[in-house]
């Protein structure tokens, strides 16, 4: 039986979380290949349109990773990400996208283990939820 393999898009900030993912790689710690990473300079660059576009193009989940509050390379970009995320989550719920499908987490450059853990957890949670039910309403 073919297990459902969720597609997760991850937005990783250049300074902390992307480096954290690299750290994970350097220690050869495996994690599910379901995640596809888009590198941005700061989690504050993640426009809600990107998240919606990801779902629209077939993602089953979206993960946004940034620096821990107080550590943002650009001072408070991650706080902006947090604000948008709080509102976006409520809105996505109205679109029928469950909370577990969109996550915002803080991963520092040294937290390779944590990165792998977050990805694994998310993949499993989204796997249980299944693919986005039906289709996003577009025939185009």
């Amino acid at each position, binding site marked *: 039986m*073919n297990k459902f393999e969720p597609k997760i*898009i991850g937005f990783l900030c250049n300074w902390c979380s*992307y480096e954290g993912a690299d750290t*994970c*790689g350097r220690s050869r710690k495996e994690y599910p290949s379901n995640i596809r990473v888009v*590198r941005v*300079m700061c989690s504050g*660059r993640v426009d809600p349109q990107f998240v919606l576009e990801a779902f629209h193009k077939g993602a089953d989940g979206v993960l946004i990773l940034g620096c821990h509050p107080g550590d943002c390379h*650009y001072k408070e970009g991650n706080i902006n990400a947090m604000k948008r995320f709080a509102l976006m989550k409520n809105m996505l719920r109205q679109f029928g996208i469950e909370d577990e499908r969109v996550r915002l987490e803080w991963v520092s450059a040294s937290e390779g283990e944590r990165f792998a853990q977050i990805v694994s957890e998310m993949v499993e949670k989204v796997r249980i939820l299944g693919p986005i039910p039906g289709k996003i309403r577009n025939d185009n």
Partner: protein
Amino acid sequence: MKDSESAEGRIGVFICECGPNIRDTMDIPGIREYAARLRGVVLARQVPLLCSGEGQAAIRDDIVQHSLTRIVIAACSPREHEHTFKKVLTDAGLNPFLMQFVNIREQCAWVIRDKSVATRKAKALIRAAAGRVALHEPLEIRRIDYQMDVLVAGAGIAGIYAALTLARKGRKVYLIEKSPVIGGKVAQYEKVFPNLECASCMLDPVLDNILHNESIELLTLSEVRDVVGYFGNFSVTVSEKARYVDAATCIGCGACVDACPVSVLNEFNGGLDYRKAISIPYPGSLPHIAVIDKENCLHFHDRSCSTCSEACPFGSVNFEDTGRIREVKTGAIILATGFDVFDPARAPAFGYGKISNVYTSLQFERVVNSTGPTEGKILMTNGKPPSSIALVHCVGSRTREFNEYCSGICCMNTLKFARMIREQIPDCSITEFFTDFCLPGKASQEFLNNMPDSLKPEFIRIKSADTVALSEEKGAISLSYEDVNGIIKQGLFDMAVLSVAVEASRDARDIAGVFDIPLGRDGFFQEEHVKLSPVSTVKDGVYIAGCAQGPKDIQSSVAQGVAAAGLVLSRLIPGEKMAIEPMIAAVDETLCSGCRVCAGLCPYKAITYNEKENVAVINDVLCRGCGVCASACPAAAINARHFTDKQVMAEIAGLLEQVNEQV
């Protein structure tokens, strides 16, 4: 074929085997074939080691021979080698931003065991990169002229060393000092630890240097009122208060001081004695010029008195002085505005201000100073030397109620006092009430250890400074405290010295406001990074040094002053132009409605609102390229170069295209 000819351009994909690292974990030939078929790709090559000389040469040659206009590099992490390949592109005549770097090692080969799964992921990543890179634009690195002069605010030890370092090779420095004299707190000390060196002997030659340095323009009685601009091009408005004495002719003879009929408390001696309305702050102060305190001068009340002017043999008194406003252009700013101390009146238990013979450590510095109110003699208010002195540590420090941090210098300072008291009054009983002893640095522990028993004070470890209470008892000071076991004990003393916390200066907030830099939680100026950027701030070109950044000793203040100067010297280089980061944001004025959402968001204050044109303007020198404004803009009027909406969306689409295949 030119870049502009087709949107996709001619894309070359280079896949690195990275030795066995990537080669053995996925089907590279298969990936290469796949890449070759992608839209816009005219060449796909597999290379054993791309970062090697041969690898780089292969890319360079291919760019030229195949007229490639966009490059995809699939290899290790971009954080490892992006700069390497940017240089390769530049050498081949291609703009370095026409490249997209794909991480198929750290985030693919090294974390996926199944070869076919790794291969599939690598294909998706490369496909996404090809879609993205087709939309890349060449970015130019702009270079601009900048100002060489530097402004140093604060002529304490940190500011002085910053100024002297900068002035070594003739760099023009504007040294601004709020008070009428230079030297800051160090000029108020008699001796400094750990070697009990004479402070003025140490400091005076340095101060002299400042006064006679041709590159340093000293402005006393001056403060910065406004700052406009950015690193390399600041425009600073300095307001100089009137001194009412002509600095060029006054020789500091003091005749005016003797003649003046008005006496007020002398703030330079911590309010322990009096000065006149016209004064020279303390004997030996530099610059050695009189100054009139307008608030207390009779002449300014009712024009009734001109005694000082009449007494002056050189006619240096000038009641018509109005001060002046100056605008100076500088490339960088160093803030070394020093500190204030905790006011123990805020903790009534210490009896400060109510009980006689209770001093702060700063006041006591004046007491033991030969230029102080008692010419250096330790005397009680009744004129007699004390037979017992209590030295209380941690007043206002290490307590949730006032300041949680340890000031780091008071323990050494108190030990210094103990030595000085013992030298002056050999049979004075000295008791140090401490919680912990903080003695960092090479010579500090030694200072305590090497104290002969005969010179040592009595050390009493107490539960905390919060448990200390002073009260008056029969003309003496009764000091009660809780010892480490919580038992309340008490002692009688003739005099008490409270080692008060080093605090941010009272006008730190105002100064931070003018310079647009943040304050930390404890009110000191916030450094850019606590470990790696201790003298920089988030405002590019504004540096901080000395106790303005946080409590520290003289050595560290000097180090920071020199460090800040060093950073300035390494960035403002005569003849060089400043390169501006190209991956920044830009406002499209045809789309910007002037809604002003972005202007308040930028932590670097790079965005301003042009009221006349009703649009936002981004300063390309200050912008650091985080992209927060671009995503916040509700009209998508801000272009985040190299991370545009279209580029990111193309990448997302590419990553998800395999709808029919299993991940």
